[in-house]
């Protein structure tokens, strides 16, 4: 089980898995259909494997992959909650999985209805006027939202606004998205309580500010208590407030970005609404806006009249499409199913429980790891491995040692303002036993850091591969198999 060769290294010439029926229309000469110059000369050198080889190969690969279904995954900022199996069942219905985005609206009434209703739910959850479901992920939502903000300013003759304010604890996608939208970045520091430093904010506010991007709770896991002041100040300076919804699992039914003063919000449905992360995607990052920004949303938007549901074109002011078709539809079906399952009480219970679990862990680990911002947290908490450093132990070593206990490590080295950060998000779907076990293991590791640091430095011990040479990978990039 310690190595699995590539699919290209398996099989033999002439082997194959699935086959088609024989061609049942009269065959015409290829040259008669396609000019020789445009024909492929040799077939792509795809794998040649039988079905049993295929099955064993990818079954083995799956066995070499940790996942929520196999263990605790407290990866901060990622909301690795349980992915309900009913969602998988519903999205696989032929009436959802086997419909074409361009078939006539009258033959897709169920699909449009679902997206129409989902939009309404998201508006209610976020306190927004309308949502577009097109963005495929959080970062896609960010760039879409920034485009909306840009179009808004332009519509008011303020196209010169070219600065986006970003807190020093922001996720990397925030500044990257701002660049994509051709904005300059102003970074604002956090204060000692982990809130945005309001004085520092004031210092950068001027009429070049297009807006600010924030999460709340922020990436330190704490709720920014100054949010109203911030919203007022930014609005007074003519800026718009963008809410990065990566942490929305902390606020469902408790508070809403719209009520905090945000103008645009994205929700990561692959976090908050249990769309499986898929080993990296697909997700869904719809954005919602307040009324004044609605004209700028990409279109079309789902609508309803006496004849039923339809796709309504948006007006001239729209930023235009940000992707083909209507979004990651099957991810949206899962999110819809999830919201319908929970209802109002269930949704609130998610956040309450996520907050409780996070505080339970935070409280129990305070004595063993440095807690830079020692306040009640929301759905996650950020520790530091600073205390372990004197033993030559870094956050990464703590992380690798956790793997030995079949626990996925927290997010490490993020947010950047916490050195040796360990960002722990248990989510609401974990049992007390799992949390207690994690706490015990983390204590053991803190102890080992003192008494037996090598066991951390050499970890992980039981995985099919040990620590991998990242430098080599980057120095001599091998991204594509080119033959034995």
């Amino acid at each position, binding site marked *: 089980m310690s190595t699995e060769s590539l699919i290209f290294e398996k099989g033999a010439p002439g082997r194959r898995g699935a086959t088609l029926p024989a061609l049942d229309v009269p065959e015409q000469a290829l040259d008669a259909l396609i000019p020789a110059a445009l024909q492929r000369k040799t077939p792509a050198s795809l794998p040649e494997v039988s079905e049993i080889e295929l099955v064993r190969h990818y079954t083995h690969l799956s066995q070499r992959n940790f996942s929520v279904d196999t263990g605790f995954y407290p990866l901060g900022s990622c909301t*690795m909650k349980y992915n309900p199996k009913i969602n998988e069942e519903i999205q696989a219905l*032929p009436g959802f999985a086997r419909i074409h985005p361009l078939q006539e609206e009258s033959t897709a009434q169920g699909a449009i209805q679902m997206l129409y209703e989902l939009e309404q739910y998201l508006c209610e959850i976020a306190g927004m006027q309308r949502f577009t479901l097109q963005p495929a992920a959080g970062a896609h939502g960010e760039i879409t939202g920034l485009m909306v903000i840009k179009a808004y300013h332009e519509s008011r003759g303020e196209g010169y606004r070219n600065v986006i304010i970003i807190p020093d604890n922001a996720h990397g996608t925030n500044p990257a998205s701002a660049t994509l939208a051709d904005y300059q970045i102003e970074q604002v520091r956090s204060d000692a309580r982990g809130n945005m430093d309001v004085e520092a904010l004031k210092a950068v506010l001027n009429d070049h500010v297009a807006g600010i991007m924030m999460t709340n709770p922020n990436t330190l896991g704490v709720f920014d208590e100054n949010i109203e002041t911030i919203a007022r100040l930014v609005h007074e300076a003519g800026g718009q407030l963008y809410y990065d919804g990566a942490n929305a699992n902390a606020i469902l039914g408790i508070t809403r970005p719209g009520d905090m003063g945000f103008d645009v919000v994205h929700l990561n449905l692959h976090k908050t609404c249990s769309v499986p992360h898929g080993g990296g995607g697909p997700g869904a990052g719809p954005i919602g806006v307040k009324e004044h920004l609605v004209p700028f949303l990409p279109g079309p938007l789902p609508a309803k009249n006496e004849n039923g549901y339809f796709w309504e074109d948006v007006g001239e002011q729209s930023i235009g499409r940000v992707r083909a078709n209507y979004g990651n539809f099957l991810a949206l079906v899962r999110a819809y199913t999830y919201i319908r399952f929970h209802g109002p009480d269930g949704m609130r219970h998610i956040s309450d429980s996520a907050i*409780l679990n996070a505080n339970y862990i935070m409280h129990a680990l305070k004595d063993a790891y440095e807690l830079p911002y020692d306040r009640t947290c929301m759905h996650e908490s950020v520790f530091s491995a600073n205390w372990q450093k004197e033993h030559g132990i870094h956050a990464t070593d703590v992380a690798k040692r956790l793997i030995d206990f079949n626990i996925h490590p927290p997010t490490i080295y993020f947010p950047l303002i916490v050195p040796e950060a360990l960002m722990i998000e248990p989510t609401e779907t974990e049992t007390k036993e799992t949390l207690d076990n994690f706490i015990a293991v983390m204590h053991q590791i803190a102890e080992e850091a003192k008494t037996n640091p090598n066991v951390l430095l050499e970890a992980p011990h039981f995985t099919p591969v040990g620590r991998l040479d990242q430098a080599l990978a980057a120095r001599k990039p091998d991204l594509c198999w080119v033959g034995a």
Partner: protein
Amino acid sequence: MNTYVPSTAAEQQEMLRSLGAESIEDLLQSVPKHLRLNRALNLPPGASEVELRRALGKMAAKNANLDEHLCFLGAGVYEHYIPAVVPHLVKRSEFYTAYTPYQPEMSQGMLQAIYEFQTLMCQLTGLDIANASLYDGSTAVAEAALLAVGPTNGRGTIVTTRAMDPQYRQVLHTYAHARGFDVQEAALDVRTGTTDLESLNSLMDDDTAAVIIQQPNFFGALEDVHTIEKIVHREDALYVVAISEPFSLGVLEPPGAYGADLAVGEGMALGNPVSYGGPGVGFFAAKKDYIRRMPGRLAGKTVDNRGQTGYVLTLQTREQHIRRERATSNICTNQALVALAATVYLASVGKEGFRDASAQSLQKAHYAQQHISRIPGFHTAFSGHFFNEFAITCPMPIYDLNLWLAEHGFIGGYDLARSYPELENTVLFCVTETRSKDEIDAFVSALADISQTVGAHS
């Protein structure tokens, strides 16, 4: 209350006590009271699985699905045969309930699968490197443009063509406006259904960062990619080929072979259901010169501390979480699971099978086109060569045609007038290897029927 929270009320009380709190409210002190919702969310009441199956089953049943309707629609989203083994493997929950493989030691499965996907995209496109995926074909086009106008270059215009998928172009324009670059579109040669090369030529100048064409283009027609290559490279622009129908690569020359610098597109048709257009998977392949300007995740091969082969996410200094505002792209979450399905699909049908599927699509589309164009009132709209899509002018508005077809169990074609006002009563049909001769014949005779009806009325 329906919930996936395992803790009972009693357990939560116990946990609260251990924190010195009496209720959850005690943990919410930092959320200002007047910012609270202070009411229940206005959402439908919770529904158990049984109720969800009933309600969502009904909703799904309102859609005409491709099990019950024979589909002759493509236009960017293609129905192809999905071997049973593909969903079987992709649904293994070790794959789909994992995050992006940040901890390589416990994520070798997904990392290796990504590396295999990258390799397959290289094999299909004939290019050197490929990334782990982008959101979809349209955003892959936008990312190609962003690479081209990027800092190293200084050029600020992207030239594309009206023969490219209208939705892709819309997305390109959206990004262009935000990022601040220019997009120009070469005209359509309405005779051939391909890009007007004179028009294209006339748009080229030393500000042209890249030319983006689509092969086959939106009409299914084949562009003269060799002549275009000369036009593009003569101006030292990047030659970007967009592909929305990856099955074309089974019979068509790969972009790498005719000089493309980048090949980008939509891989959804490889092993994934059409699913109302998403999730798909953008792919992005390039000559190796562009390795440090690539957007998105890259899996690379390396060795571990025991000397064993292993895989990691690499060249992360290009990415947002390291490089932040100077990243090559803002992408974080991508479409990994869809890429996995494409990987399993390609490995399943393999070298011979993929070529076969491609060739059968080609043959069947031509068979259909030849028979449809013999029906009175139905004419082939363009003279160009095509892969598995073709435009037909009809004796009636396409909207009416499609509704009539839907009633008779068919999903009709794409109404070209929706995007090209000059192409009235013109429909774009698609035929893939999934359609049997009998089904095509039934479709042809349905069209013949309607032709008679219209004839009778006119």
